[in-house]
Every structure is written in structure tokens, then in C-alpha cells.
């Protein structure tokens, strides 16, 4: 992983990183926005997964529900990525050594790929509502990957 070190060092020295480190309030404010984004995004994953399992909102198709949720989904993902990068940059050197951060980035990588492939395909056709197996696998993957990101993120503060 050491070939990535110059990138972490560069992030640590960016204007964004130095501004956040130099302020008493910026980090907590950005962190609070990050947490609100988490609430919305993981809330969406819970709702969609419950629908995919057929537990809730059965009168509405998964596709219709996902279409209603899509603007919120992407707004929260982009909010998370922007505020997340800011938080990361301000303590990039700490993150470099953090196993939690590496775990989080691995989950995030797969979660984003999953989001634009399997999840996208499942939530833009009606096939998923007539195929319980397909629906359940999609739901479980969505929950595991996105909650993995959340667990890893919270754990950065602990180990």
C-alpha cells in the first residue's frame, strides 16, 4: 500500500485539509452533515431492502419506490462523498494507518459499483418483483455493503 502514501500526504497538505484543521468548528459541522447523509442513505437502503423482501409497501412496485427515492439516494451519496473527502483530507495521515479506513474504502468501492450495476438494474425493471431470490440477494448485498461502509467509518474513531 505504500505506493499510495504520496497521495495521502498530498491530501493532508491541501488547502481544504489545512482550513479544516485550522478551525475549531469546521470538522464537527462537516461531520454532522456527513452523519445526516448517513441517516438518509442507510435509511433508503433499509426501505428499499424491506420492499425487496416484500415486507412493506407491497402496493407499490420496487421500481416506482426506487424512482421516487432516486434523487434522495444520489443527493445523499454525493453529500457523503464530498463531506467524506473533506473529513478524510483533514486527517489523511491518520487514515493511512487505519485498518478501519481501509475496510471502509473497500466496502465503499464495492458499494458504488454495486449501486450502478446490480442495484440499478434491479430497481429499473419490474423483473425483481416477480423473482424473490433475485430481490433478496439484491437487498442483502445492499445492506451488507452500505452498512459495511458505515461500520468502517464509525470504527475509524476507535481503531
Amino acid at each position, binding site marked *: 500500500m505504500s505506493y499510495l502514501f504520496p497521495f495521502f500526504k498530498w491530501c493532508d497538505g491541501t488547502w481544504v485539509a489545512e482550513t479544516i484543521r485550522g478551525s475549531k468548528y469546521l470538522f464537527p459541522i462537516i461531520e454532522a452533515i456527513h452523519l445526516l447523509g448517513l441517516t438518509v442513505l442507510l*435509511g433508503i437502503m*433499509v*426501505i428499499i431492502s424491506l420492499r425487496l423482501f416484500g415486507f412493506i409497501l407491497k402496493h407499490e412496485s420496487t421500481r416506482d419506490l426506487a424512482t421516487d427515492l432516486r434523487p434522495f439516494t444520489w443527493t445523499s451519496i454525493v453529500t457523503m462523498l464530498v463531506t467524506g473527502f473533506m473529513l478524510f483530507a483533514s486527517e489523511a495521515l491518520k487514515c493511512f494507518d487505519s485498518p478501519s479506513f481501509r475496510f471502509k474504502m473497500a466496502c465503499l468501492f464495492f458499494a458504488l459499483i454495486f449501486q450502478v450495476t446490480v442495484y440499478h438494474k434491479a430497481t429499473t425493471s419490474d423483473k425483481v418483483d416477480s423473482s424473490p431470490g433475485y430481490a433478496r440477494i439484491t437487498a442483502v448485498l445492499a445492506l451488507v455493503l452500505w452498512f459495511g461502509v458505515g461500520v468502517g467509518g464509525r470504527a475509524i474513531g476507535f481503531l
Partner: protein
Amino acid sequence: MSLLSICQWIQDTPIGTGLRESIWMFPIVESTHVLALSLSVGTLFWMDLRLTGTFMKKQPMSQVSRSVLPWTLIGFTIMTITGIFLFWCQAVKAYNSIFFKMKIAMLVLAAVNAIAYHSTIYLKMDEWDKAMPPPARARFAGWASIVLWIGIIICGRTMAYNF
């Protein structure tokens, strides 16, 4: 006995001390509290948006309510249990934190808002189940809930800091 000495006593109990000094339990309880936000506020949010008439407009309110609320309640049960334990092990810190006091004040307001909604306009849902926009009192309850919960989350997170 002052409130502060009660807080001191609470966090000095074996459970309080044990949890505070534990290697794994505290992070697990803390992380559960944070991630259960998805199930509690993360699901309540959509019901609130439906109440305000800005989301899932084609779905009758009763269906959204019936679908989402049980899961929201499971989420809030987890939040309450983990929240009590987190307070238990750092009661003095909470006592000294203005953000904790603000959080509790907003939790009380959110409870009042929920009780007011459920004991009035919720009972007459038949009349406005499919009405768009929903009645003003329903919209007010929805927006109030959204604003309060955003405030509660911000204050909860900010409790970790001393300004």
C-alpha cells in the same frame, strides 16, 4: 442530592464504569446507536415527507404509515436502549454538555409532536388518506418532526466536543 451527584453516582455504578472502560462494548454500543439511525430516523423521515405531501404522493397515508411505523419503532427501541447505556457510562459528561441538554429538549418536543399528531388528526385519517396536499396540521407535524430530528442528530454528534 443534586442532579450532578446523581449523574456521578450513575456513571460510577459497576455497569457505568465497566462499559466506559471496556475495549469492545463501548464501541459496539456506540456504533449500534449511530447505525440504528438508519432504522429509526432513516425510516421515519419518509413517513414525515409523506405527511408533508412531498413524497410518495400516490400512496395513501394509511398504507405508508402502516408499512413504515413498525420498523421505525424497532429502530427507536434500539436507539433508546443503546442511548440509555451511553448515558449511563458518561452521565457527568452529558450533564455538562449544552448539546446533550438541547438534544433532550428536542427529544421532548419530538415526543409532544408525535403524541399531538397521533391523538388528533391521525385518528381522522380516513378523511384525508388520499388528500393531496394533506391537511395543514399533518404537514406541520411532518415538517416539525424532520426539523427536530435533524437537530437531535446534530446535537448528539456534537456532544463529543467541548467548545
